[in-house]
């Protein structure tokens, strides 16, 4: 990629311009379709950000729905409060700051969860992050200010195609630029061999925590977009199944392959829309897909990178 387009900043600008044009033409679009397209955008942000943690850095996090919920609640509480005080007219201006605030609080949560990742590996880390997600959910379920079990409703519908795809572009840009730099090779080095990475002067802890913080930030942004798209949220929406869905996208896309992960996010969001049967048995199908994939295509279902011929020995 980087060889074709020398400057990724140009790509980012083009993508944002595309998002703006898409947003302008959205009025003519059937709202059902534009809704699905926004769902896809949110799924891409979730999958690409989790890919930084699980794919590139090789940590097994099951907490993405937890980070997402933090961003959703924080941003929704901000815009709901502002709606009362400054009225709906000025709200669009407050949307981006509210999203970012949600992302920042989610990033702090990521820091909190990232720290145990210094000590835990594989299954143990998965269990800790899973526990974190559930704890967050239980907290929201019991906090009156967050609407307790009935959640928040009447959230202003601020999420449109423009914001969604601008933020998709930013997410892909940030993760892509980070990983495709000398600094960013450290994430992959930690993924490949932690002992070797630290022997080359790279601090594995630092990289892991950084991955968690940045991944959680964008999960929080996705949560904010989600809340202002659906206009109501409950703690149940952000349960373990949501995290699992994102994990499936990353695995099927081929851990660490951004293009594959984006494709997986698109297909897995579309499938339940078109096939009602798929929607009902989604989790079973996901589980079967993963088992099939581990046997037949361990490099990822949507990872079409040309296999290199091994050199002669």
């Amino acid at each position, binding site marked *: 990629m980087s060889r074709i387009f020398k*400057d*990724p*900043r140009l790509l980012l600008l083009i993508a944002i311009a595309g998002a703006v044009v898409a947003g302008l033409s959205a009025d003519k679009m059937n709202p059902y379709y534009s809704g699905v397209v926004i769902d896809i955008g949110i799924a891409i942000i979730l999958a690409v950000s989790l890919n930084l943690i699980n794919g590139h850095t090789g940590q097994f996090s099951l907490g993405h729905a937890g980070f997402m919920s933090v961003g959703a609640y924080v941003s929704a509480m901000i815009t709901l409060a502002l709606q009362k005080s400054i009225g709906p007219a000025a709200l669009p201006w407050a949307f981006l700051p509210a999203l970012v605030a949600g992302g920042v609080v989610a990033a702090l949560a990521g820091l909190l969860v990232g720290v145990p990742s210094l000590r835990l590996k594989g299954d143990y880390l998965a269990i800790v992050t899973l526990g974190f997600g559930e704890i967050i959910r239980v907290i929201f379920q019991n906090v009156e200010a967050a609407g307790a079990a009935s959640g928040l409703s009447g959230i202003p519908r601020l999420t449109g195609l423009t914001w969604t795809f601008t933020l998709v572009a930013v997410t892909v840009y*940030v993760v892509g*630029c*980070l990983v495709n*730099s*000398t*600094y*960013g*090779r*450290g994430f*992959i*080095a930690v*993924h*490949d*061999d932690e*002992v*070797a*990475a*630290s*022997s*080359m*002067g*790279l*601090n*594995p802890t630092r990289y892991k925590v*950084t991955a968690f913080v940045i991944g959680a930030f964008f999960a929080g942004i996705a949560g904010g977009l989600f809340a202002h798209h659906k206009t109501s949220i409950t703690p149940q929406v952000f349960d373990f199944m949501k995290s699992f869905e994102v994990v499936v996208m990353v695995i099927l896309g081929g851990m*660490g392959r951004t293009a594959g992960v984006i494709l997986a996010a698109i297909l897995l969001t579309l499938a339940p829309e078109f096939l009602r049967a798929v929607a009902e048995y989604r989790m079973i199908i996901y589980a079967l897909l993963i088992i099939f994939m581990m046997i037949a295509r361990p490099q990822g279902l949507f990872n079409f990178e040309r296999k*290199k*011929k*091994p*050199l*002669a*020995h």
Partner: protein
Amino acid sequence: MIAPLLELENVTIRFGGLVAVSEVNLRVGDGELIGLIGPNGAGKTTVFNMITGVYQPTDGKIIFGGKPTACQKPHVLTKRGMARTFQNIRLFGSMSVFDNVRAATQLHRSHGIRQALWRGRSHQTSEKEVEDRVLELLEVFSLQDYRDELAKSLPYGGQRRLEIVRAMATQPKLLLLDEPAAGMNPSEKEDLMHLIEFIRKRFGMAILLVEHDMKVVMGICERIAVLEYGRKIAEGTPKEIQCHPKVIEAYLGAAAV
């Protein structure tokens, strides 16, 4: 007298009941090429692991560049100027040959997240510098033609050489090589040893070399230390070691078992 680059003082490590290394003393001066030999299980790799901070000695002191290394993590010690290769090759398997070396140049760079995201002029200049340096190192080890291949797909000897290149990319004052010629045929071994002598002169670093092949070690090392069952049983010039009764006994003993 100037303090040596590396000094081990009565270094001991126990794993449960097993004393893997016992009261070892060793000095490596700037630019020296020292051999560390001994039969299988003698504790050579364990000594490396203690020097580089992978293990903490149970007893004794390790001093590097005049300062103790106690409780410092491997990545901190690498920044202080030591680098190693692994006996059981530990390359970054999912990365290209080029990227394996590139990752090892990061430790002395000031560029991090901010520059990677901003992608300004200084980022490009710095990345270009990294590229030039990596290619220069790959060329010294005749690996430049493989730069875009996966590290895993290199032939065995190439992987061993890549491990050395990667370690050198951290710009060490002390390079620790753990059986760099293992699995090579005699002529490959010969070439590698000349290469090691060459890089030591060209880049001016000290080398601590673990190697089983006596002929090779005798050929290039200035001084050799011999371990057996975790103890240092002899140290001296290759000539002295060759006719040291304890060394002959250790090796004949090992061969007889």
